[in-house]
């Protein structure tokens, strides 16, 4: 792949930051050219950037197999919408309510996460997501039930912009802040602690990482970003209904971070962009949307398990993303039963020991250390 044209360009021209700035510039000028439809797509895309950046902190960096992000997204949207409708709060006051509500629920979810790991945590958060969805649907006195409810449009009254452009600019601003914050978090003590927990909870605790505190922070941060995204989403649609926060939504966000790259902030942005555009192109044909989405998810997990960000990091000389870690491959506590060494010589097959299986893996050593 060294013949790739990009590789011959000077590093500063195709560096991660240069490309990021170019993308940002494109998003800034979009409102000047775009028709309302593309403005809407751009706004949706930015909301997904916010969502996936937060989710990647939790799943990609802290390694928690959680399925509750769509529920947090919903809690943010419902919190924002309902405080506007029921108490007459303006958006500026309602949005933080939704945000902190989602962050609160997110933090509470860290408590089961302290006792559960891997698939059991997945199941518990899945159950939480189903319960949240059920509450949105059936607590009709408060949430208006399955039909959803209308939210007043967000007004930017003193400023000379329309509601749509104002909301777009606000979303863009928040997305940039969230991405920059997340990029700094993963380089800080906090981000390193997340990665340490992901790669071995016992080892992390033994070097003094307080699991409760950091897991709560990971869940809380992803809840907070999902809450912000939910608040903006309720403003974008002017409508909140339970089906926006269902399992498809959850899997969509998961797929975005896998396609972009688990454990990479740039990857979240890339994945959110790619999948939003693909789904938008297939809008209206649900079956093909599902197939395309499933095939992307499956294909990336198997063929490019560390996502497009890792692919770029290898191919583009100026990419140099700090602390990008392969989150899917490699030894871990929860590795699938038996790593089978790829090429087993024919003479050794069928009963005799495969080469390499005597070499202790780090997981095995850790198991031994635990006993």
């Amino acid at each position, binding site marked *: 792949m060294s013949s790739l044209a990009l590789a011959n360009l000077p590093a500063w021209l195709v560096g991660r930051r240069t490309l990021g700035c170019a993308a940002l510039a494109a998003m800034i000028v979009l409102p000047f050219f775009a028709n309302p439809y593309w403005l809407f797509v751009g706004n949706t895309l930015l909301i997904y950037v916010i969502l996936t950046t937060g989710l990647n902190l939790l799943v990609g960096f802290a390694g928690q*197999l959680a399925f509750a992000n769509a529920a947090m997204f919903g809690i943010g949207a419902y919190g924002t919408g309902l405080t506007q409708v029921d108490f007459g709060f303006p958006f500026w006051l309602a949005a933080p309510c939704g945000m902190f509500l989602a962050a609160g629920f997110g933090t509470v979810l860290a408590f089961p996460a302290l006792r559960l790991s891997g698939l059991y945590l997945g199941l518990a958060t899945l159950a939480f997501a189903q319960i949240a969805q059920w509450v949105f649907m059936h607590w009709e006195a408060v949430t208006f039930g399955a039909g959803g409810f209308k939210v007043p449009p967000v007004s930017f009254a003193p400023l000379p912009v329309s509601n749509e452009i104002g909301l777009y600019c606000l979303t863009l601003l928040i997305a940039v802040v969230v991405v920059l914050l997340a990029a700094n978090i993963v380089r800080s003590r906090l981000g390193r602690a997340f990665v340490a927990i992901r790669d071995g909870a016992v080892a992390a605790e033994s070097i003094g990482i307080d699991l409760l505190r950091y897991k709560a922070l990971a869940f809380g941060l992803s809840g907070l970003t999902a809450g912000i995204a939910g608040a903006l989403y309720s403003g974008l649609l002017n409508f909140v209904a339970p089906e926006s926060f269902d399992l498809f939504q959850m899997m969509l966000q998961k797929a975005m971070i896998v396609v972009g790259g688990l454990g990479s902030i740039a990857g979240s942005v890339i994945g959110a962009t790619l999948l939003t555009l693909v789904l938008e192109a297939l809008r209206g044909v649900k079956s093909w949307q599902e197939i395309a989405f499933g095939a*992307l998810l499956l294909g990336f997990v198997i063929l490019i398990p560390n996502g497009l960000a890792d692919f770029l990091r290898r191919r583009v000389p100026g990419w140099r993303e700090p602390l990008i870690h392969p989150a899917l491959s490699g030894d871990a506590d929860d590795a*699938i039963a038996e*790593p089978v060494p790829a090429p087993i010589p024919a003479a050794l097959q069928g009963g005799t020991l495969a080469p390499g299986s005597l070499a202790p893996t780090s997981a095995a050593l850790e198991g031994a250390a635990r006993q």
Partner: protein
Amino acid sequence: MLAYLILSGITTGALYALIALGITILFKAAGTVNFAHGELFMMGGFLAYTFVTLLGLPYLLALALAIAGAFVFGIITDRIAFRPLIGSRALGVVLATVGFAFILRGTARILWGGKGDYLSLPPLFAPDPIIWGPLIILPQQLVVIGGTAIVLALFAAFFRLTRLGKMMQATADNAKAARLVGIRIEHIYTLAFGIGAAVAAISAVLMAPLTLLYTDMGFALFVKGFAAAALGGLKSLPGAVIGGLLVGLIESLAAGYIASSFLDISAFVVIMVVLIFCPSGLLGGPAARRV
């Protein structure tokens, strides 16, 4: 009222038990959960519908074909979404099977969607309800309970009496040691995927006359089956059966005595509470604390 609720609870519980059984067999053998299990269930139901209603094959032959078809789909799941990922993290397998689930669901929507959203499968026996005191029993309910009992008995025999069953148990017990004594554990994984899917298809065929078939049915049933399997500790076949019956009974009683809308949610409340207090399920033995 109570007797009726218990009967319907046991009927749905039997189906959850079969779904949980498939999940447990795979988890025991390969240490992972197939998130496409619900979609394999759905495919089994739609295959049966195709053979019985669209092609007009004899009922039992159609059922056998549907179950064989689901077995093949299970093997495809293994080849596409599991085998390339052996040795990588659990998260990878979960996401790969989720991706495969969406492919199956989209395909089913193309093939069987648009013929009215809900398709019906005729029951094995004519629906002539049996009235026994205050209780009205649908024959299909008895078929479900009886069919589940037969499947469970077959599995018990399979694991105790056959060479293949013992090989599966050995792999579940210790994959490394099983390979040392010459068991091709990859084949055991493949078999576990296939058997899980076949059991899912059996439960789909048993259930379809009572509920109806629709392309989005898979995931909710998978989550309930997963909850049932986790209640039983994910590693115990009797545990999966008990977990399934418990989930069915809890749902039915909550729907009858609290409010009908609680049908969908009671199982999830129970599983959250159970997981918080017993992180490895009710029958999972002492928790291996992985702080």
